[in-house]
């Protein structure tokens, strides 16, 4: 069966510090991968998605970036965090093209101080 991992689970970082969040998927190959952010009391906003190694699409302009160095690894980064980057970051995957369901990882709760 497929599983998706994210780490760290929680993170407190000062403004201006760098960020690296990692997501890995097991039990599937060539998944579509997604990064979402959920601000407090709000819905989920898509940040990036990837259909393959090295292929990244950005949905919103921001100071975040994403990379996919391996088939089942998706990384979210920032060189300098802003207070507005605080939120709950969720990685998701989608497998077969005919299956439209997306499954989420456990999430990383980021607080920028």
């Amino acid at each position, binding site marked *: 069966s497929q599983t998706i991992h994210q780490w760290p689970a929680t993170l407190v970082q000062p403004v201006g510090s760098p960020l690296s969040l990692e997501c890995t998927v097991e039990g599937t190959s060539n998944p*579509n991968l997604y990064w979402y952010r959920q601000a407090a009391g709000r819905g989920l906003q898509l940040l990036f998605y990837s259909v393959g190694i090295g292929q990244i699409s950005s*949905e919103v302009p921001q100071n975040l970036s994403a990379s996919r160095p391996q088939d089942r690894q998706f990384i979210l980064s920032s060189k300098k965090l802003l207070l507005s980057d605080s939120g709950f970051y*969720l990685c*998701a995957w989608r497998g077969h093209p005919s299956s*439209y369901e*997306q*499954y989420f990882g456990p999430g990383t709760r980021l607080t920028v101080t």
Partner: protein
Amino acid sequence: EDKVVQSPLSLVVHEGDTVTLNCSYEVTNFRSLLWYKQEKKAPTFLFMLTSSGIEKKSGRLSSILDKKELSSILNITATQTGDSAIYLCAHNDYKLSFGAGTTVTVRA
């Protein structure tokens, strides 16, 4: 750009009540509508509704898609405190476009 609107934003009910949540959508090309339940962590998948599968049921939860009205409802019958959560609706194309969610609080 796809738009998904959920109502109400929040509601409080007592155990045993029935809850109806609404989701309306304006999308360029409808593919499918997904419902998720989010407790304190990541959303968990509930239902997927498509043009060929407009009604789904699982235990006390059920959902219907109304393609004419461009909307969907999620029903929860005989609510329990464990149903307290945020319920999210999303249109599923190559990405998920989420509504803001409905926060349901079930009081004992």
